[in-house]
């Protein structure tokens, strides 16, 4: 397959080297893929895409887009020549230009400006909003304009920075699907940055996990979920319980103690009888959370454990358990 | 919407071009003279115009304080366009001479008009007008018989009765320099301290404000230059007129060295490109015509002995001048300032 983006040993620090925002990152993205960059705030994900877009210059390493080296220690190509599209977190529509003018903006060198603008507006379903200004549009509409604007010049790579963080939960799912349907339709290669793993799992072909500027894992969504390489990665995708010595003893689990293991909360079975590892527990406290509830348990050997369940739990005592196939193992 | 802006901009550019052209043209005509002057009086402007008419020489004027002009001439060096430097005190002319900015001029017309104590001993500069620094007193509260000299002002009878402007003023510095020259440094410092003691308020305002303060009753005595009284008595402002009429002029030290005078004067720049014109201008400014203008419209004492004082000045009577060599004022100027500071004269 064709690599659209290739990044080798990339580093970038700020404050004269004190803060390492990106630390020796290597990866590539194949043509047509949608790639998510996931990390907490401060993990360096925004710096990474700014480096790709050419808005920052690297301290080390290089970036290759469509086979051409665009950033290295010796030279950098300016952003306007990289043929990269970008949708910013706050959309960054030009407030003094209307929707049509915003979209035509990136088409200065093309002859078929109007037609191309019509095409992308059609694509995002905003053909009737040409004359509007940014402040006359809803958040979702602004985002679609920003997307249309970025797609208009037919970039070889589309970057989206936290595309859904400004939207409320209801709109979010709907818009996520809309946006990525559009992206799929155009077949453009896309990288998007998010702190929300649900977004990543829902639409990405591949997910990159960044922690403190380092790339800790890059994999397909399902592999990442099932075979996380660290407890950090595992916990990004939902509540995870680390199996320490006490817990292993409680469940009479024969795993070696010097290796790190964890179990996802959703793989812990309540009222279990047919699990491989089972123990009894006292309910110390229950917190009602609507569709589910959180239980603070005291296991029979005195260990504490907190689990979330949507099953109805009666009485103060219960059996819980899990199976060996669900145990996550790391090298740490 | 943007059009008016562009039109304005265009107009301005045209305007500035026009000015440049103009200056280029004028610089190519030979007969001109560049005057660096600290005298910003209308009388001077009128005299320059009259000189232009009479001689056909164009007068270009740069108005600024003498110190700034001297600094400018130093920086410009040999290429300085300045032909003459005019100041309002002898001290600054002396300083310009010290800095080698002036050249000696020997000219029989000038020599025939000016007595020797009104010019530099090496003919580097010449006085244009004289002004006396006198005591004015409130007519209704002060008996002039109680007044005698500058030195007498520190007497305790005048405690809280005197107003005078700040020590940063050149006229005060020159007065102080004359006191140092006459009485010595130590006595001068004691005098300044005594003055500070007797002041009715901290020094502020200009000479006219001192007169108004005396008229308003804030103090009984003030030290001011004569021509300001003359101007106040001819003021368009009724308040100034009233104030000036409530005070009278006293010429101090008539029994000894005489009243302190200072001069405004002129010197030819060392690298003057138009020396001939410069000398012509000096001759003109010392002529009876010009001296009459100085005397009548600016109430200064003329240096040309053939010219009479303005009627107001005549009404105050004649007085004995301190004939201290005026170069002394320049030499002692810095010392005067230091003593002022030490005495706490603000």
């Amino acid at each position, binding site marked *: 397959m064709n690599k659209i983006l290739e990044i080798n040993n990339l580093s970038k620090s700020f404050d004269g080297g004190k803060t390492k925002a990106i630390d020796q990152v290597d990866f590539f993205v194949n043509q047509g893929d949608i790639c998510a960059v996931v990390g907490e705030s401060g993990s360096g994900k925004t710096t990474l895409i700014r480096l790709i877009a050419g*808005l920052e*210059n690297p301290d*080390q390493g290089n970036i290759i887009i469509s086979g051409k080296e665009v950033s290295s*220690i*010796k030279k*950098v190509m300016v952003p*306007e020549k*990289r043929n990269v*599209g*970008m949708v910013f977190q*706050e959309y*960054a529509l*030009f*407030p*003094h230009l209307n929707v049509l003018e915003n979209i035509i*903006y*990136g088409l*200065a*060198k093309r002859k078929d400006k109007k037609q191309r603008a019509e095409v992308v507006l059609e694509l995002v379903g905003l053909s009737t909003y040409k004359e509007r200004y940014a*402040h006359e549009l809803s958040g979702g509409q602004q985002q679609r304009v920003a997307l249309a*604007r970025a797609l208009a*010049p037919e970039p070889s790579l589309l970057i989206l920075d936290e595309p859904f963080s400004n939207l409320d939960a209801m709109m979010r799912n709907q818009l996520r699907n809309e946006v990525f349907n559009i992206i799929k339709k155009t077949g453009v290669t896309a990288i998007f940055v998010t702190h929300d793993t649900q977004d990543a799992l829902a639409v990405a072909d591949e997910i990159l996990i960044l922690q403190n500027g380092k790339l800790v894992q890059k994999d397909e969504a399902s592999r990442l979920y099932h075979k996380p390489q660290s407890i950090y990665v595992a916990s990004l995708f939902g509540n995870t319980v680390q199996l320490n010595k006490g817990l292993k003893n409680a469940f009479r689990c024969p795993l070696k103690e010097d290796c790190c293991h964890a179990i996802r909360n959703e793989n812990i079975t309540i009222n279990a009888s047919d699990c491989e590892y089972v123990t009894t527990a006292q309910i110390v406290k229950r917190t009602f959370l609507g569709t589910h509830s959180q239980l603070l348990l005291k296991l029979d050997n005195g260990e504490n454990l907190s689990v979330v369940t949507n099953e109805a739990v009666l009485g103060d005592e219960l059996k819980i358990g899990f199976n060996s196939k669900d145990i996550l193992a790391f090298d740490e | 919407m943007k059009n008016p*802006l562009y039109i304005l901009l265009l107009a*301005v550019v045209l305007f*500035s071009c026009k*000015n*440049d052209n*103009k*200056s280029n043209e*004028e*610089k190519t005509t030979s007969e001109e003279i560049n005057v660096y002057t600290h005298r910003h*009086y209308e009388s001077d402007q009128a005299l320059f115009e009259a000189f232009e008419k009479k001689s056909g020489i164009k007068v*270009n004027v*740069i*108005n600024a*304080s003498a*110190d*700034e002009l001297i600094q*400018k001439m130093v*920086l*410009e*060096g040999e290429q300085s*366009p300045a032909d003459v430097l005019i100041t309002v005190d002898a001290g600054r002319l002396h300083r310009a001479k010290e800095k080698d900015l002036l050249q000696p001029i020997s000219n029989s017309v000038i020599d025939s008009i000016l007595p020797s104590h009104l010019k530099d001993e090496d003919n580097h500069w010449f006085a244009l007008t004289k002004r006396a620094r006198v005591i004015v007193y409130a007519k209704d509260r002060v008996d002039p018989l109680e007044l005698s000299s500058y030195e007498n002002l520190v007497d305790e009878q005048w405690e809280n009765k005197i107003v005078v402007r700040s020590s*940063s003023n050149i006229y005060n*510095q020159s007065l102080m320099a004359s006191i140092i020259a006459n009485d010595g440094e130590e006595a001068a410092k004691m005098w300044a301290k005594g003055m500070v003691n007797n002041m009715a308020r*901290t020094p*502020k*305002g200009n000479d006219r404000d001192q007169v*108004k303060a005396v*008229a*308003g009753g804030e103090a009984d005595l003030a030290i001011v230059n004569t021509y*300001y009284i003359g101007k106040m008595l001819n003021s*368009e*402002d009724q308040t100034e007129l009233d104030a000036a009429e409530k005070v009278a002029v006293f010429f101090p030290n008539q029994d000894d060295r005489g009243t302190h005078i200072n001069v405004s004067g002129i010197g030819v720049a060392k690298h003057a490109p138009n020396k001939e014109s410069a000398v012509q201008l000096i001759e003109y400014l010392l002529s009876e015509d010009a001296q009459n203008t100085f005397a009548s419209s600016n109430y200064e004492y003329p240096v040309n002995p053939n010219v009479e004082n303005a009627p107001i000045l005549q009404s105050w009577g004649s007085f004995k001048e301190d004939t201290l060599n005026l170069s002394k004022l320049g030499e002692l*100027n*810095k010392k005067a*300032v*230091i003593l002022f*500071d030490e005495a706490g004269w*603000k």
Partner: protein
Amino acid sequence: MKQAGNRNINSFLDSFFKLKRDINRWSIATLFILLLIAVPVLTISVKLFDGPGESWSHISTYLLPSYLENSLYLALLCSLLTILFGVSSAWLVTRYHFPLRKVLEWLLIIPLAIPSYIVAYAYAGFLDYGGVYSIFMEVFGVTQAKFDIMNVFGLAFVLSISLFPYVYVSSRAFFLNQAVNLLEASRLLGVSERKSFVKLILPLARPAIVAGLVLVIMEVLNDYGAAQYFGVNTFTTGIFRSWFSLEEPETAIYLSALLLILVFGLILIEKWQRRKIQYSSVKSTNTKTNKRIVLPKFQQFIISLVVIIPVVLGFFIPVLQLLIWAYKTVDKVMNQSLFWLSLQSFGIAFVTAFFTVFFALILLYFSKWNKITLVQNAAKLGVLGYAIPGAVVAIGVMIPTLFLDKWFITEGFATQFVINGTLIALVYAYVVRFLAVAYQPLESSSLKVSDSIPDSSKILGMGNFKTFIKIEFPLIRAGMLSAFILVFIDTLKELPLTLILKPYHINTLAVKAYEFASDEMVMHAAIPSLFIILTALIPVVFLNKLLLKNE
């Protein structure tokens, strides 16, 4: 050992490559412009190493302590007063509807147009024997009334009343652009108007207020005429005293350099604060929903009164006094040449404002476009000229330009000075001096444009320059207009620098006013001063119209 050595060499090579990579034409242009602007400042700063003259011990014993105390005292008082007048009027004007609001909105800028020494004279005259005040008091049977304003408090009042528009302009720009939306959000959360203002808006507006305040303080430290007349000795008095009375230019320049350090410290503190308050540069929000609160008639009336106070104090009272004097001297002073003078002053101020805004924009944006942090920080040094007294700037400009001029003559390129004694030196010096005045409003309005907007433009294929023309220029236009007006007005009333550097054939209204005032003919200075105000009104009204049209 050897490995460590290799690593050092490698990292050195890396830095070299990166430097070579990051130097772009903008870095070079920034440095070039910065050099142009900084040469006069540097010329003066270098003198710091020569040390002061022999009078230094005299000055530091007898003068400096009290001068410094007075200056700091003045700076403090003026800060308080200008914030009081400037922020309150800016807030009321943006937030409330009241009678005469539109007129007052720009009248509040006009006090800047009267040179502060003229305001000082006007107030002294107004409150002196026989002045308007004493005539007024006679109605109450008090004769020979005089209110003594000639002291440090009076000076602080006079300076504040003529300088508060700096704070007004910068805080109004902030209020107009952001505050109202934020406030409405806060109101929706149930916080009262007053509390929202104190707890939310004021802290957010701090960078904008401080930006205006820095200009006020620099101007206060720089004032000579008013302080001199009121008999209050300030740091600048010290500079002039050591230069002129003690005949030691080196000491004067040394003192200016010290003042420079002081002001530089102030600027650093301001930057540091601004960095701490990152949230202040929130993204641009739309201003079109800005609806002013309509209060009951009586309260509207009260607000009008409150806003009129600074206008009356800073504009109407001084102008009234000037008009009285003008009436008395009109026969002697009024003639056609004044119109010609006005035209020249207008032209010079216009050209100066144009170039100053131009250079300020260059410094602001070129330094952004260059990728070297050091150059970015250095660009901020360009604004230091404002801290130096005009007369000292003039010297700073003359030393290097005369060097060039003389070189031109010896090399045969010219037969006479081509920089000095022409408009070039004058405008150059003005630009050096007023760059900060233009830089502050431009910087704060550019901060309001979120970085992602120009970034978007670049990613969409426009270079830095095209992005500036198409995106940033229209978005910061309001800031550019304020910058232009402020520099225009400042140039109109500038004095010491003009006196030293102006060409023979050019004269300005300020010079004319000064010629009268320095000869203690304050009354005669009234008419030229009024002409200054009229000339200043032209761009204010004109540009305000432009602004309103776009609103």
